[in-house]
């Protein structure tokens, strides 16, 4: 049976503190950007969310590969948790980006490669969840989900690359194409802190989700001989016979 994990509890508290710490840095420490002003501040959480939206795909694919290779349920749970968090963070990344774009680009949406890639990635996560929902057998759902996570992971960089070949107006911090955005060192520190805080939050959420999924499956599975749950199940079965 799953017991309480001390490390996870500590880490959860740390993650919450880190996110609030990063928020405080964004509000009080990071300076106002010269041309964009206040809306630019959403950028710190935007970049962190977008980053985790991509990391999730990696986690999901690794979980998928491990599941196909070893057949352990925990790897399937990891893959599923990765996809769910990926959907969450890619939606967060997209929404924060749109809120930023309205004052800065004067439109919520452009068909910019990064926006397009992020949204297509969200749809891939959604496809994965729909695929699993449409399958009754848990092992089959795990098997087919793993395959979809793997090909999805391969296709996303290609989508990014192909969209990137079209022109981009998205500001780039890393890399050398598109419009440059210049950052001062307090801005870099705030960004680094946000990314670390969000990554910590991601790890904690992932861990919780995997444990929850495993607990759920344990409850759904056949009770083991001799346990209290087994006794109850036997009692119920006798009741139905009479």
């Amino acid at each position, binding site marked *: 049976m799953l017991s309480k994990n001390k490390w996870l509890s500590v880490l959860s508290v740390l993650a919450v503190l880190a996110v609030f710490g990063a928020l405080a840095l964004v509000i009080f420490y990071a300076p106002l950007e010269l041309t964009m002003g206040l809306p630019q501040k959403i950028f710190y959480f935007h970049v962190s969310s977008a980053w985790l939206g991509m990391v999730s795909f990696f986690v999901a694919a690794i979980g998928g590969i491990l599941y*196909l290779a070893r057949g352990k349920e925990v790897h399937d749970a990891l893959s599923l948790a990765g996809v769910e968090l990926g959907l969450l963070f890619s939606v967060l990344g997209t929404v924060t980006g749109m809120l930023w774009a309205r004052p800065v680009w004067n439109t919520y949406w452009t068909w910019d490669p990064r926006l*397009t890639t992020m949204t*297509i*990635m969200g*749809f*891939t996560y*959604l*496809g994965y969840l*729909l*695929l699993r929902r*449409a*399958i*009754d057998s848990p*092992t*089959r759902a795990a*098997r*087919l989900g*793993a*395959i*979809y996570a*793997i*090909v*999805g992971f*391969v*296709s996303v960089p*290609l*989508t990014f*690359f*192909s*969209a990137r*070949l*079209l022109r981009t107006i998205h500001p780039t911090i890393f890399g050398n194409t598109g419009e440059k955005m210049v950052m001062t060192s307090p801005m870099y520190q705030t960004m680094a802190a946000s990314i670390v805080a969000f990554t910590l939050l991601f790890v904690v959420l992932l861990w919780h989700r995997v444990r929850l999924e495993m607990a759920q499956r344990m409850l759904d599975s056949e009770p083991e001989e001799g346990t209290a749950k087994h006794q109850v199940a036997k009692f119920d079965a006798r009741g139905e016979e009479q």
Partner: protein
Amino acid sequence: MASLWALIKKDLIQEWRSKDIISAMLAFAVLTLFIFNYALSLSPQAQASIATGIVWVLVVFAGTLGINRSFSAEQDQDCFDALLLGAPDLSLVYLAKMLSNFLIMALLALFLLPVYSLLYNYSLFNGLFVGLILLGAWAYSAMATLLAGLSVQTRMRDMLLPVLLFPLLMPVNIAVVKAGAGILEGLPFADFSIWFTLLAAYAVIITTISSMVFEYVIKE
């Protein structure tokens, strides 16, 4: 090699006897073209920039209709077990399915090009353009065949394939449309050769990965 050919022959003979899939695909493609004609008020002036897009959308939509059925015979008649017993290597089952789907897609494309050229008095018969559509059809079949193997095992079956397929097909769509526009506008090959490289890379990578994981698609 012999067993690969045997598997392809089986699919093609099956299709040849019924002609269900190909006739439905062709009719669907032409009808969709008629919808586009009015929906987008296609004029001869706009041809170079959108002709590729129209033709490619027809190929993708009609192709999805057809590829959806590609595993339904196996599923309905429980022939997956026979394939598991008979095929020496399960990646061959995938490759054969992929190639027969590709041949059907190629047939569809080779039918659509003259129809489009005839209806719009705008010739699409350019060696490079035909090559592009065929390369796109390969990239498309490689991904669609694998995902059809997944969706056929779900409760939603036909409904699910487009939802799974279209997000992952994005690079193919962008590359075909961009390269096609370059060809029809008469730009030098060097200007759009990168899209050919991208398409070929996608096709090779997806074909390889799919044939590696296909055994997990049908093995319970």
